């Protein structure tokens, strides 16, 4: 107990500041407390051991301790040693729990006299509910038995304390905010505090004591007074809530804006008892508010205030305007939130437990016109003093413009994206649906991607194509040109419109027209199937040819008639002479007939060659020798008024070509030259070596660089203008009158040169003459045995036992061949069709050579030869072909040990070919 009794002296300063705080918080009430006749003590539980910080004079009176001796000590210092521990424990428990408590404790005055101290201790809390002080009242209840009066005192004291406490609490609740009033409705009396008095210009003492209720209206601005009177009448008549703003006129005439908020208290019968409230000076606030209102209206800022749990929101006019609602100051939460587009955050959030600040953006459909706007809402959750609930206060403003530009930007992006997507889709569609071949190729010409058309058109699966080079499956004849174009595109040049053939999976070739588009180190290719077009073109060309041939029948008939006349006439004469027994001139007639027959053969050759139905039979050729051998023929062909000069070059290279075709070509050119010189002139045929270097070759289409043998045929005739030269190689182009020429000449020469991998050039000048150069590739091998045909020679004769099988369905031709073979000393076997020929081949007979017609019924010559080769792998074969066999003939037709002779042929030619073949083996 000694310890408990020993006074504690907390810091003076702390105590002083506690007292200051008390004065500040309690304001005029504190003064009232000081002066009250009721013994009072106040302790500060925030200081160590809850020391007394204030006692009034009444307290000092009953305890005997002056204030300075009581302050700083815990109240227990006055306890008598025999005071009841249970009671002090009860007090302690109540204090710790922050409860009110009444207790009677035996105390000792300063002068040592003991007395019963009846205490009432109550906590005092600040606005947020924290206990800041304990307030106690004290009574000397020693003479408890004469308690009638004391008891009454006690009761009034209790009541007074209660009231004082309530007033204090209420004041503290609005700490620093303004004055408070209490209107006793029953007694029509108004009690007001010092601050209220100051605002109203009342005497604070009088106001505290009570003034007539009507004083409430005294200082109100006359313009506001009726309004407030009505409102107060409402309260006096039973209304519950009072909340008004009005102006007060100070005695010096200055105006203050105040906000009076009050509430009516009722008795059990709902009769109004008291009207209490707080007056807050809002002059500053008004100014600020006005400025804010102007700013908000100008800035389009709407404000709102919402107490959690309420159904409505207080809003500003601007708020209503922003949402397109009727101007009002309260709106249902739902009305506001219903304007927000689904999925967007609400304007007012209603879920509990929200705190801090909050920002949201949302779209609304304006209530008045349905227009969509973007609004932003910024709000803050604050504790509401009045209801202890949460108040959500904030602003809304329009952000449509910002959002629109944002939106526009996004839309633009999206549109761009979707446009790109669409394009891509379109392209994908094109890619996958097109019947054209599409492919992407890398820098080496390998396919990296192909479209489905490849499968549809060519039958290759994607995985079969991807990875292959572009020129896989290209037709051998188109390889060279394909390589050229590939090179071009890989160099970065665009390539358009070139045709080539691709082998489909089924082996058939399709004509494809290609376009290449380079793109960096890769390229795109688009190929269109033009097979049908090509076929149609072929058909067209063929039909054009046929038409032309029909047209030219006259010309050919003319030639033929002349020739036939020569032949028939000569044979007639021969027959006559033989029948007359005059054989001395027979040979002359035979020669004449032969010449005519040769020319007729040449004519058909020309026709066939033109039609490309005559296969070439290339051999090494000495052009000098060939030209020289033609001298006789040429001289006979041209008229006497034309001078012929042959200029063979020394050391002329060999060339590789079909000598018969070369002969025809030279003859054709000579005939053209003759026809160009109706009044005579000079025909020159020259030979020379020619080197075409790469640079020159690149300027000339279709010509590969390299060594060539040139044969030029020049005349001094009329010459041709450039446009005619340009067309000179077109088939059937002719300047000759109908019936006088075939027009086949130059195009045949051109076709021959091209087929021989050479080319032709024409130089012509009107009035001066024309030179046609035929370039044929140089041949580096040996010269073939080149006996110029001149009747059957001994050299052709067979060696003993050499056997030839002749398969030919045409008896006359077969007979002729057999006769020739017999003359030459060969043993000859014969068959008139494929199967019977085959049975001979299957026999054990010696057979050195098979001579077979290609166009045989049943088993054709080619098939027969193939079968024969199975039985006799080294069998040599000589094919005889004619017009009809064209289809079966192509390059590659002839294997090693096979040769070909074309109908019609000279007997001597046949003999030398047979000899040649047999010997070579």
């Amino acid at each position, binding site marked *: 107990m000694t310890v408990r009794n020993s006074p504690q002296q907390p810091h003076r300063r702390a105590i002083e500041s506690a007292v200051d705080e008390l004065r500040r918080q309690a304001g005029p009430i504190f003064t009232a407390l000081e002066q009250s006749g009721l013994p009072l003590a106040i302790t500060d539980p925030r200081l160590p051991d809850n020391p007394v910080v204030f006692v009034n004079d009444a307290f000092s009176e009953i305890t005997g301790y002056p204030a300075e001796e009581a302050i700083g000590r815990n109240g227990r210092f006055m306890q008598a040693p025999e005071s009841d521990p249970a009671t002090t424990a009860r007090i302690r428990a109540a204090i710790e729990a922050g409860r009110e408590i009444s207790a009677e404790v035996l105390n000792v005055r300063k002068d040592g006299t003991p007395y019963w101290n009846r205490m009432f201790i109550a906590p005092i809390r600040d606005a947020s509910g924290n206990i800041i002080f304990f307030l106690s009242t004290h009574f000397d209840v020693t003479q408890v038995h004469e308690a009638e009066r004391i008891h009454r005192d006690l009761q009034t004291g209790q009541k007074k304390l209660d009231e004082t406490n309530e007033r204090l609490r209420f004041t503290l609740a609005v700490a620093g905010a303004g004055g408070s009033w209490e209107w006793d409705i029953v007694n029509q009396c108004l009690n007001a505090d010092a601050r209220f008095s100051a605002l109203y210009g009342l005497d604070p003492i009088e106001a505290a004591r009570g003034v007539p209720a009507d004083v409430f209206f005294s200082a109100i601005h*006359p313009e506001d*007074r009726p309004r407030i009177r*009505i409102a107060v009448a409402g309260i006096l008549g*039973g*209304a*519950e809530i009072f909340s008004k703003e009005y102006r007060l006129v100070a005695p010096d005439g200055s105006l203050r804006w105040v906000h009076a908020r009050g509430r009516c208290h009722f008795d059990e019968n709902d009769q109004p008892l008291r009207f209490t409230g707080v007056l807050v000076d809002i002059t500053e606030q008004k100014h600020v508010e006005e400025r804010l209102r102007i700013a908000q209206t100008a800035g389009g800022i709407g404000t709102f205030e919402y107490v959690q749990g*309420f159904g409505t929101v207080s809003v500003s006019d601007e708020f209503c305007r922003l949402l397109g609602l009727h101007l009002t100051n309260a709106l249902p939460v*739902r009305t506001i939130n219903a304007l927000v587009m689904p999925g967007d955050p609400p304007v007012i959030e209603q879920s509990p437990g929200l705190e801090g600040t909050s920002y949201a953006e949302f779209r609304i459909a304006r209530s008045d016109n349905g227009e969509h706007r973007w609004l932003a809402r910024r709000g803050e959750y604050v504790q509401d003093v009045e209801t202890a609930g949460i108040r959500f206060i904030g602003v809304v403003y329009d952000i449509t413009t910002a959002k629109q530009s944002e939106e526009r930007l996004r839309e633009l992006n999206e549109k761009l994206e979707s446009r790109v997507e669409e394009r891509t889709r379109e392209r994908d569609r094109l890619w996958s649906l097109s019947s054209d071949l599409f492919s992407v190729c890398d820098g080496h010409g390998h396919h990296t991607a192909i479209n489905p058309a490849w499968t549809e058109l060519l039958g290759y699966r994607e995985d079969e194509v991807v990875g292959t080079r572009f020129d896989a499956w290209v037709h051998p004849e188109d390889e060279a040109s394909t390589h050229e174009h590939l090179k071009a595109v890989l160099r970065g040049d665009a390539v358009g419109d070139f045709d080539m053939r691709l082998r489909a999976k089924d082996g058939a070739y399709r004509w494809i027209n290609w376009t290449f588009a380079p793109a960096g180190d890769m390229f795109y290719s688009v190929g269109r199937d033009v097979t049908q077009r090509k076929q149609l073109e072929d058909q067209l060309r063929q039909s054009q040819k046929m038409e032309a041939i029909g047209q030219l029948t006259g010309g050919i008939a003319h030639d033929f008639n002349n020739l036939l006349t020569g032949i028939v006439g000569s044979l007639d004469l021969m027959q006559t002479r033989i029948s007359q027994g005059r054989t001395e001139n027979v040979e002359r007639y035979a020669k004449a007939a032969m010449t005519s027959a040769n020319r007729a053969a040449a004519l058909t050759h020309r026709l066939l060659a033109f039609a490309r139905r005559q296969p070439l039979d290339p051999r090494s050729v000495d052009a000098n020798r060939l030209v020289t051998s033609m001298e006789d023929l040429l001289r006979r062909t041209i008229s006497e008024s034309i001078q012929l000069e042959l200029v063979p070059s020394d050391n002329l290279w060999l060339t590789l070509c079909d000598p018969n075709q070369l002969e025809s070509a030279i003859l054709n050119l000579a005939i053209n030259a003759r026809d160009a010189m109706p009044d005579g002139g000079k025909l020159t045929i020259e030979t020379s070596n020619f080197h075409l270097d790469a640079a020159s070759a690149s300027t000339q289409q279709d010509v590969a660089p390299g060594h060539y043998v040139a044969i030029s045929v020049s005349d001094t005739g009329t010459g041709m203008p450039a446009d005619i030269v340009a067309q000179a190689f077109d088939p059937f182009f002719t300047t000759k009158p109908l019936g006088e020429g075939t027009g086949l000449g130059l195009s045949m020469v051109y076709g021959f040169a091209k087929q021989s991998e050479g080319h032709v050039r024409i130089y012509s000048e009107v009035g001066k003459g024309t030179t046609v150069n035929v370039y044929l590739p140089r041949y580096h091998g040996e010269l073939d045995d080149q006996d110029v045909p001149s009747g059957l020679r001994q050299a052709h004769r067979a060696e003993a036992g050499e056997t030839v099988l002749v398969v030919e369905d045409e008896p006359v031709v077969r007979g002729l061949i057999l006769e020739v073979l017999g003359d030459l000393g060969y043993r000859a076997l014969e068959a008139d069709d494929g199967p019977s020929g085959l049975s001979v081949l299957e026999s054990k007979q010696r057979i050195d050579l098979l001579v077979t017609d290609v166009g045989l019924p049943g088993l054709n010559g080619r098939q027969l030869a193939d079968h024969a080769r199975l039985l006799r792998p080294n069998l040599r074969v000589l094919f005889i072909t004619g017009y009809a066999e064209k289809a079966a003939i192509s390059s590659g037709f002839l294997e090693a040990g096979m040769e070909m002779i074309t109908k019609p042929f000279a007997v001597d030619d046949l003999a030398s070919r047979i000899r040649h073949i047999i010997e070579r083996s």
Partner: protein
Amino acid sequence: MSVDIALSELERDALTELVNIGVSRAASSLRKMIGEEVILSVPAIEILSPKDASRLIEEREAGQLVAVRQQFEGAFAGRALLIFPEETSLDLVRAVVGNQLSPDEVAEMEQEALAETGNVILNGCLATMANMLKRSLDISLPEVIRGDGPLLFELLHQRAEGGLVLFLYINFSVRNRDIRGYIAMLMDLPSLAALQQLIADFIERVVGKEVESVSSKGTDSQNASWQA
């Protein structure tokens, strides 16, 4: 268009106060019924044509409405409507009858409970107003009607053509229940004129001579404006 511009500021205040008292009374009755705190805010009033009233309520309440209607006769006459959004009405019923009931039971009692609640509120409101104005009113039994704004304000009141709606936007909130409603009084022009006169008397009584200096300028135009 709102036509309440015709009321002087003071008259508006007075009318608001009167309604305030009435609603306060009604709310305290309601508080007793529900046993939960009913928080009141000072109502706003508007005087509108029936058409504008229906538009106004449609603007604020999207769904169906439930209304308790009572007729009143006396110094001024008309119909009073206590209007709730349909979803609110069930909440209110639940607040009145308690939480223990199942939704089915609540639905069953809805009609009755609404009528009773409506009666408490409208009756309290009207009677208090009449009392303040030192007059008495006969008030009929409540009936519950359902429909949208046009039905409540226009179709059902064709007789009141040329009449106006005194639209009280009462903001009474039952804590923890999102309950809100409106009170509308449909009156014809003679009734409104009578009401206005009573309000003037009330002002006279309360404000006394003071009023003459401040509110006379609004008074001249009042009668004309009521007829707009």
